[in-house]
């Protein structure tokens, strides 16, 4: 079915962004309102289209809209077309819904910032690019959105670029994302070279005929792309620094939407990964490593936003893990993505609210006992906390439990390894999130002298409250009658429902998971409630803690493996350029000048030497002729 409305989803925020950027200071008074309105109208259209889709029978739900013929070379045609199917509509509602709430929140959060209009322009640009990413019907259309969100992310991380460290963080995020983008462009090139098409439908059709090697190559390239955008191992190092951006940005881009684009990409490419077991295995390995990596890093962070960023990395690790489990996992990955969108965005907004009341202090060791001063923030953050650690009946319980269960049932030693990683990650999650809660909201006051914590205004707590409701209810709604799994079935096509050989019955898995979560909470309580918390991080800690505080040496590793050899290579190339290439050019010049100055010495200015030379020359010629003619 076609629909003419889909393009407005993207066009409205895009035009609004252009207006805000171009209209200058005049728009300062109403810029934030226009931005919020643009995002809200996108949400309205998205919701309307969703109801339209609901009214259709399952197989006719996908809506398409052809905008124009983009590339037409011989038999190769790419249309700029939009595809709103069961998968993309989930994203559209998440992006515009959470996006609108965060726009509302930002009106108040950024009210003291002189550049608020520019901030909203970038936010709208992000919404438009992200919608294009999920609505494109070919990898090429997706790529445009993919680059667009990278740009918006860069602009927003470096929004306060008057601080050099923030500008560096933006550059770091951009450069590491470029590595992933290279993977995506290579995947598109391989797909085009081997199948002659870049559209999702075309590749899905051609995939069964393609060789496994080709599909594995495409799959690995797509995985690199996903790792870059979603901060997965080994391209994870940018996410922590990306917290330099304003907190609403961290909530929208670096928790709820953009960083989940990798999960979308893999789910969208399910037809490639299902036919390429090697690539799929790499996906689960990357997911499992990242979920543990992020969780371990999260345990030692004192910066509340960086702790949440580490947690985001870990939760996306869960999603990637689920997508790597094949047809049974995709729906659970998307489910975790949606519930995570609610509770993590809610918690980031909560962190922003705390920072708002504490003079932008981010060090949790300077918080403490904020429960009484910020009751609404405490409650909304607390609901998000219960959701992320997976306490029933909150959202995270349903989605994470499904992933753990699916991982355990993956079969054989692989299932046991992945399941234990997921379970251990759940315990770590419970530990570090409990730590965040305790350090921030309970215990003793460790504030700076000039801190006067207060509850945030309604424009800030209302979005937090709505997201908290989502954190509570969404998991239950998605799993009731397998609603989300059935909804997504036409896109990700699970083979059959009851095929898996269950290692353990679901209720036992839930029990084990909850026990591990409880142990995590108890350890955190023992460490941070029973013992007093110092307001500076203690120095006499184990070597392991020191390593974890440095993000498991991710920057050191990147610097030694890539940066220093890269710099060495650059230096060597510069030396070659200067010595060999410039040397040859300069050498030829110097040779001409040198031989000239040597020859000049024969020009003495004495007539007699000239005449002697002529004589010798003439004699030589005569002698030569005589020798030759003999």
């Amino acid at each position, binding site marked *: 079915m076609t629909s003419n409305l889909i393009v407005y989803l993207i066009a409205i925020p895009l035009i609004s962004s252009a207006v805000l950027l171009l209209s200058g200071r005049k728009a300062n008074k109403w810029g934030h309102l226009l931005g919020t309105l643009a995002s809200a109208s996108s949400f309205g259209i998205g919701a309307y289209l969703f109801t339209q889709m609901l009214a259709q029978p399952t197989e006719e739900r996908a809506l398409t809209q052809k905008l124009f013929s983009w590339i037409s070379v011989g038999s190769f045609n790419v249309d700029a077309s939009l595809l709103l199917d069961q998968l993309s509509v989930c994203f559209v509602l998440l992006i515009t819904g959470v996006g609108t709430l965060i726009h509302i929140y930002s009106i108040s959060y950024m009210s003291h910032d002189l550049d608020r209009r520019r901030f909203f322009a970038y936010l709208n640009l992000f919404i438009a690019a992200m919608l294009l990413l999920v609505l494109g019907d070919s990898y090429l259309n997706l790529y445009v959105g993919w680059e667009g969100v990278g740009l918006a992310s860069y602009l927003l991380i470096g929004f306060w670029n008057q601080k050099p460290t923030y500008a560096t963080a933006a550059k770091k995020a951009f450069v590491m994302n470029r590595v992933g983008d290279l993977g995506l462009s290579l995947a598109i090139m391989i797909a085009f070279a081997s199948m002659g098409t870049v559209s999702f439908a075309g590749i899905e059709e051609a995939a069964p005929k393609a060789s496994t090697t080709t599909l594995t190559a495409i799959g690995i390239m797509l995985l690199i792309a996903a790792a870059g955008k979603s901060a997965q191992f080994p391209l994870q190092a940018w996410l922590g620094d990306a917290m330099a951006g304003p907190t609403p940005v961290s909530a929208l881009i670096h928790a709820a939407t953009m960083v989940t684009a990798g999960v979308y990409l893999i789910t969208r490419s399910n037809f490639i990964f299902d036919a390429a077991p090697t690539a799929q295995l790499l996906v689960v390995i990357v997911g499992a490593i990242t979920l543990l990596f992020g969780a371990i890093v999260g345990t030692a962070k004192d910066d509340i936003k960086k702790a949440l960023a580490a947690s985001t990395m870990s939760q996306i690790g869960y999603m990637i893990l689920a997508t790597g489990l094949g047809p049974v996992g995709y729906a659970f990955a998307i489910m975790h993505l949606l519930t995570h969108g609610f509770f993590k965005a809610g918690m980031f907004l909560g962190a922003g609210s705390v920072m708002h009341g504490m003079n932008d202090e981010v060090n949790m060791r300077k918080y403490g006992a904020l429960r009484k001063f910020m009751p609404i923030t405490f409650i909304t953050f607390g609901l998000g906390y219960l959701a992320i650690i997976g306490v029933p009946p909150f959202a995270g319980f349903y989605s994470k439990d499904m992933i753990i269960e699916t991982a355990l049932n993956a079969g054989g030693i692989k299932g046991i390894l992945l399941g234990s990683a997921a379970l251990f990650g759940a315990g770590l999650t419970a530990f570090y999130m409990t730590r965040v809660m305790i350090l921030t909201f309970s215990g003793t006051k460790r504030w700076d002298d000039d801190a006067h914590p207060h509850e945030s205004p309604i424009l800030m707590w209302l979005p937090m409250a709505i997201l908290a409701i989502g954190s509570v209810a969404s998991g239950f709604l998605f799993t009731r009658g397998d609603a989300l799994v059935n909804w997504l079935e036409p896109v990700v096509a699970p083979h059959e429902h009851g095929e898996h050989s269950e290692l353990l019955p679901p209720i036992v898995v839930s029990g084990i998971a909850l026990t591990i979560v409880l142990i995590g909470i108890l350890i955190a309580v023992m460490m941070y409630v029973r013992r007093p918390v110092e307001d500076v991080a203690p120095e006499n800690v184990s070597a392991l803690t020191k390593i974890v505080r440095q993000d498991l040496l991710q920057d050191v590793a990147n610097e030694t493996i890539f940066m220093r050899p890269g710099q060495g290579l650059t230096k060597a190339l510069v030396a070659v350029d200067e010595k060999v290439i410039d040397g040859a050019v300069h050498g030829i010049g110097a040779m001409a000048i040198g031989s000239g100055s040597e020859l000049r010495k024969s020009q003495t200015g*004495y*007539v007699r030497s000239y005449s002697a030379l002529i004589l010798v020359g003439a004699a030589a010629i005569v002698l030569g002729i005589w020798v030759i003619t003999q």
Partner: protein
Amino acid sequence: MNSANYLYLSALLFTIGAVGVVIRRNAIVVFMCVELMLNAANLSFVTFSRINGNLDGQVVAFFTMVVAACEVVVGLAIIVTIYRSRRSASVDDANLLKR
């Protein structure tokens, strides 16, 4: 008389002239040595004309005399002018074109 003897004389005169050009400093003497070389060449031409039994060499000798007369006019004028300005007839003093 053997014609080759004229050629030996010609070579001797030419050598005297050439050595004179190279080793003498006085412009007038250098000039006379140049004339000596020209006339040595003339002698060769005339001798070859006689050996070959035609008049080509004689004709070239006349041309050489004409050119030599012109050269004397120009050359002496230059030498006199240089002497007037530099008070010297030495060829080594006229080295301003160096560098």
